[in-house]
């Protein structure tokens, strides 16, 4: 098997006396579509934060693209090719949609190609990304003028602007309607087809099932299942801890 793109080994994180993550092992191959599910408070977001560098893990290692990234600041991990979108969209509120997309292009895109993008290249990539998520018409609007689903699209587009190898999408679909959820799933699959490995954290089972090639389940800070979606959802422990029915 090829070298995994992301390798999380025995990751641990505590908040005071509370153990948020306990010995997590996760390995993601390039090009994979992995779904991460689990009840609220199981540590999914903490895991994302530790992988991306927003939080520092206390034990274990995170290996990305062959290198250990523990201790590396979040922006450096983004430079290496790890991008994430936030659970609650965090657009830059005083910047327009286009300017939001411009930020990763200004600060990250060069780290892959080795040189800074020219003004024209940035403009055209902005355009392209806005078009990819259907926000071209609203490029000059402020985030507060966007609808919920548009904000989430902006969030994803901005993550894509960093030209990542790995995209971690944290609950990108919460609160959306059926058709909107389908829109986002299609968008993610489109991104995956362009070569981006994606980890999707979600509660909406329909989306997770249709999207994931592999499903990982987190409960109370521990990984209890990891395998093909159909197998995982029929796993008794998973049903008991999360799925019910």
């Amino acid at each position: 098997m090829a070298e995994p793109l992301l390798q999380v080994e025995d990751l641990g994180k505590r908040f005071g006396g509370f153990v948020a993550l306990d010995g997590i092992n996760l390995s993601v191959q390039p090009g994979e579509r992995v779904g991460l599910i689990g009840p609220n408070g199981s540590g999914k977001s903490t895991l994302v934060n530790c992988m991306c560098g927003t939080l520092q893990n206390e034990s274990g290692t995170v290996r990305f693209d062959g290198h250990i990234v523990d201790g590396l600041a979040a922006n450096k991990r983004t430079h290496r090719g790890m991008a994430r979108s936030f659970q609650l969209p965090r657009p830059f509120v005083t910047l327009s949609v286009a300017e939001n997309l411009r930020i990763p292009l200004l600060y990250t895109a060069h780290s892959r190609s080795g040189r800074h993008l020219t003004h024209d290249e940035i403009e055209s990539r902005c355009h392209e990304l806005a078009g990819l998520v259907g926000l071209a018409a609203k490029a000059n609007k402020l985030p507060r003028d966007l609808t919920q689903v548009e904000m989430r699209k902006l969030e994803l587009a901005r993550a894509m602007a960093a030209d990542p190898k790995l995209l971690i999408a944290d609950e990108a679909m919460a609160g959306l309607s059926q058709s909107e959820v389908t829109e986002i799933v299609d968008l993610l699959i489109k991104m995956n087809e362009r070569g981006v490995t994606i980890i999707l954290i979600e509660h909406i089972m329909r989306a997770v099932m249709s999207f994931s090639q592999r499903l990982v389940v987190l409960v109370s800070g521990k990984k209890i299942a990891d395998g093909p979606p159909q197998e995982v959802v029929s796993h008794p422990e998973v049903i008991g801890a999360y799925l019910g029915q």
Partner: protein
Amino acid sequence: MPVELLINAIIAGLLLGGFYAAVTVGISISFGILDIVNIAHPAFIILGSYIAYIVNQTLGIDPILTAIIVLPGFYALGAAVYQVYYQSFEKRGQDALRGLAFFFGLLFVTEVMLILVFGVDYRYVQAAYIEYTWHYSFMDLPFRMVIPCVVSLLMVGLLQFYLSRTFTGRAIMAVSQDQLALQLMAADPVKIKRTAFAISIATASIAGALLIVIQPVEPSVGREYIGRVFAICVLGGLQSLPGTVIAAMLLGVVESFTATFYGPSWAPAVSFGFLLLTLAFRPAGLLGR
């Protein structure tokens, strides 16, 4: 180094520290628990000092008694200030910049108004116990320090009891951690926060009276305390009242030592230096407190 001098410096420091706890406890609530950077807190304290001064001058009433009487007034003032803060900043989701500027403006305006009304002369109060010092062998315990220290510790103790045993008190502790849970318990988070902030300003009333018992006061004295209160609050662990008391005593002793052995002109640097060092070496990330 004569032992007597050392011991007296320590005693003075502990007494001073006890008083500092009263000054800081308001910040422990507003900043530690509510996460509101109320740097105008010392202004409210000085206000309390001046009110105690006026009443003492005109009616001859003991300053601490005055403070207790005007406590409801300060409580109302605190509630009003919080209301303005909430409507203008927290509700609108404004960045922290404006909130800080607001309180800084309040601090400044209060100080300037006091200067305009009272001038920059030092003011002090008269009370029976201020002149009295209890001597025990070589140890000196000036009552103008002992009484404030005792009252301060009493007040902090009462607050600790309130915060840990009563419903509202516990709700206040909880609001900093989980607003949603609070709402589910049918408690209004805004009201709880307003109560907490009002209490923090109410403590300023007492702290102000204690201050003017310990030392003469003039409008800019408040600013000396900004560094102290935040240093103590951060050192003591933000939310913990017992931690605040310990940190306050520590700072008091260090200041007392510095004043005794190096001279009082270095004293302001101590607390603020403490603060800088605490902030510099305290482990914290963007998400951590």
